[in-house]
């Protein structure tokens, strides 16, 4: 029997039982859909993921892309897998019908995508980038740009990239130096170097569209002078046929710890001063446009991290159930048959920890995707607004928490396999290596922390933060009357107050001591708020489990019991951390702030 890499039962739980995704079909935009179409689509995703993505996950890791005669060569399975993904229609699925899409809710899209991520994170990165780039063009491109570039991006002839990072400017995009010079013909000539560009060069598609951040000559310094450009690898003629090769050159490939199937490139734009590029939207608004895409991309990154954690959890669970080792402490008979690993309490601790992290992160990610749908298409304006606020404040958490804790889950998966887990014969070490990227890209977790505390908590006079607290309070109120949940509702209520108090104290510091002190412990703040949010998500899952438990039969009973136990684990072992974290924050601890470079 093959070992599963994702759990459909849990997907159904989150999608239908917790989020009620069918209700989206009452919105006009989704009216053609039903539970039946969702399930049929998920089924196709599962089949393609199993047959074409999972099957070369190890091979892609062992055979990273190489340059042969100036061309990037990638194992053929990658192209084949993406071909199936594309032919089925997953690149276009969420788009309008007139663009070839089927107006699939983003949450169902994300659920399908999560299966591919669990199956093979590095191959699905190519469509991931293409979908994100197409979304930006659809939202901000001119009609002419949309007509020329969207169709090939939605049917897989053209892939996309996001080219933000430069060698000297990673986290600090304000310092990018790639420049754009306007020409009388209306386009721009681009010049500069980009670093770490995923999918920057390959032969998987006929063409590549790079979305590049650059400064128009004479633009104001800092982020207010950054514009967004569309740079095709091959020029596209008005009739859609491909023209000349553009002046974009690969200066090298990067060799990485994980995500090895995704080609990482250093790109030179305009070495020969003829890199033709087209401004997207208005000048100097590039970063705003990019962040539009980032919100959804960051949910995707968080989901990817959750899925790698999840796949490791499922593998280690299967291993723990089938590996005999040792006897229970109470059994003194050396002749007795050894028990399976799962019989040892400490192994169950490691499994529970993984379950609590990955199922929590998974539910959070799909919840965020569901917020995207609500924000865009809910008929009620107030709901749209509230969901937008929640999405704003949750985005840094949705990206950072799963990437931090999904990785910790992978650590425990390796631990459960013991020495075998450390060898390359088992998949868990690859999951760990792959997952190590997620705290780094799409804005490092350090940058997410600054985004949360520095921008999101204070934005619109704290409206987003207040909305989050209100949403948590609503869940507490609803769950309170249920005896099984009573203890946890009390604990969550306390944690909520703790986080609120710490936030108020920090905001006071901001007024008195300035931004430096305010942001000094931002990462700890992100961790604390992340744990509060995850406890909330767990309470929501537990509430559903409680409601359904009574009428459930057989394996469903066990499934719901598992949910309650994982919730219990989170509340007993994890949530209490917020109290000491809050203590450090309220004390305005200056240990890191005061540390001097020459004391190291």
């Amino acid at each position, binding site marked *: 029997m093959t070992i599963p890499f994702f759990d*459909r039962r849990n997907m159904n739980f989150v999608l239908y039982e917790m989020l009620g995704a069918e209700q989206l079909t009452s919105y006009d935009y989704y009216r053609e859909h039903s539970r*039946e*179409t969702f399930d*049929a689509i998920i089924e*196709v995703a599962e*089949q393609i993921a199993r047959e074409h993505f999972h099957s070369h996950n190890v091979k892609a890791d062992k055979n990273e892309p190489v340059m042969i005669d100036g061309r990037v060569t990638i194992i053929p399975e990658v192209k084949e897998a993406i071909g199936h993904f594309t*032919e089925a229609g997953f690149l276009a699925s969420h788009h309008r019908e007139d663009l*070839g899409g*089927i107006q699939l809710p983003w949450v169902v899209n994300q659920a399908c995508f999560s299966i591919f991520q669990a199956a093979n994170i590095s191959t699905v990165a190519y469509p991931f980038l293409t979908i994100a780039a197409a979304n930006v063009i659809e939202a901000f491109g001119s009609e002419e740009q949309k007509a020329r570039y969207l169709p090939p991006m939605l049917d897989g002839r053209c892939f996309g990239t996001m080219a933000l990072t430069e060698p000297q400017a990673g986290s600090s995009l304000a310092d990018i130096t790639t420049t754009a010079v306007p020409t009388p013909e209306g386009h721009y000539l681009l010049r500069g170097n980009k670093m770490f560009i995923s999918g920057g060069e390959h032969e998987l598609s006929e063409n590549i569209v790079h979305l590049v951040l650059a400064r128009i000559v004479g633009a104001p310094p800092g982020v207010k002078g950054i514009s967004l450009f569309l740079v095709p690898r091959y020029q596209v003629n008005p009739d859609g046929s491909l023209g000349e090769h553009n002046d974009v050159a690969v200066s090298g490939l990067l060799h990485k710890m994980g995500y090895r199937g995704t080609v990482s490139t250093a790109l030179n734009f305009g070495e020969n001063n003829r890199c033709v590029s087209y401004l997207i939207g208005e000048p100097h608004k590039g970063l705003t446009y990019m962040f539009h895409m980032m919100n959804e991309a960051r949910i995707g990154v968080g989901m990817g991290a959750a899925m790698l954690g999840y796949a490791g959890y499922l593998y280690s669970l299967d291993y723990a159930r089938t590996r005999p080792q040792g006897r229970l402490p109470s059994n003194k008979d050396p002749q007795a048959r050894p028990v399976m690993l799962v019989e040892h309490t400490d192994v169950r601790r490691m499994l529970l920890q993984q379950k609590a992290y990955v199922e929590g992160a998974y539910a959070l990610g799909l919840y965020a995707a569901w917020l995207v749908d609500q924000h865009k298409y809910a008929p009620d304006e107030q709901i749209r607004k509230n969901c937008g606020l929640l999405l704003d404040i949750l985005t840094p958490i949705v990206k950072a928490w799963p990437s931090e804790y999904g990785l910790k889950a992978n650590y425990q998966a390796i631990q459960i396999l013991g020495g075998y887990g450390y060898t390359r014969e088992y998949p868990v070490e690859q999951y760990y290596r792959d997952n190590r990227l997620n705290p780094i890209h799409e804005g490092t977790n350090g940058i997410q922390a600054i985004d949360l505390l520095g921008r999101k908590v204070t934005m619109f006079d704290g409206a987003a933060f207040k909305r989050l607290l209100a949403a948590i309070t609503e869940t507490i109120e609803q769950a309170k009357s249920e005896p099984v949940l009573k203890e946890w509702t009390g604990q969550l209520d306390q944690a909520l107050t703790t986080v609120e108090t710490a936030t108020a104290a920090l905001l006071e510091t901001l007024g008195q001591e300035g931004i430096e002190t305010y942001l000094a412990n931002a990462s700890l703040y992100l961790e604390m708020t992340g744990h509060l949010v995850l406890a909330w998500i767990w309470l929501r899952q537990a509430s559903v489990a409680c409601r359904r438990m009574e009428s459930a*039969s057989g394996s469903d009973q066990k499934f719901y019991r598992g949910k309650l136990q994982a919730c219990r684990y989170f509340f007993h072992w994890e949530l209490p951390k917020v109290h000491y974290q809050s203590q450090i924050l309220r004390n305005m601890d200056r240990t890191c702030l005061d540390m001097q470079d020459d004391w190291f």
Partner: protein
Amino acid sequence: MNILVCIKQVPDMESKFRIDASAAWFDTADLAWRMNEYDEYGVEQAVRLKEQVAGADITVLSIGPDKVKETMKKALAMGCDRGVHITDSDVSRRDPAEIAGIIAEYARDKNFDMIFTGMQSQDRGSGQVGVLLAEMLSCAAVTTIVDFSYREGRIEVKRELEGGIRASVALNIPALVTCQLGLNKPRYPTLPNIMKAKKKELLSLPVEDLRKLESRQQTARIYFPEKKGGGLVLEGDPARLADELIQILKQKTSILA
């Protein structure tokens, strides 16, 4: 051209099977369901034939409880034109002749030119329904096909025989073929086609109206075979082990005959 494809919904073979209380079948609770793999080849071949022959029309038929409609929807999304669902909550207890009889009763006056079935079902594996159905409809049948082509009222198929041999068979339609794994590469339903499948006709007929034959056989019991002894571990010095291994291979296998 009028085409019929008969499909069965079966449990995912990766499932954990438990024998049910009657001991004559497995417990169907908590199983994931999918299209019988052999039938997927049948659906694919039918759709390819339709793509070749202008105006061809494919009916997909399945017998079973309501949930088999999910599997029928997949066939519709793959390209079948209409569905006939014969509602039957007792399908797992029926023997192959009964099943073939029900389908024959439905198909008799419909003038199908081509009928595709799987070579067997993954869960029951009797391999009888296709041939019995052909017999009942008095049309020719070829089993275990791994290649199919059609030209002007005639089909040519290849059959897989033991020992790596293949046979090529040609016959006139109307005909029935039973499909073997590897016949083709079944397509995945595309998302737009899943949406279109929603609007295709799916007729439901009660099994009572079509069941004219009594069953001819009954499964007395299903069971997991008893585990044979574990593997054999040889120990000792390598030269002697090699001799011992050769002996065993000679006695117990045909590898070194």
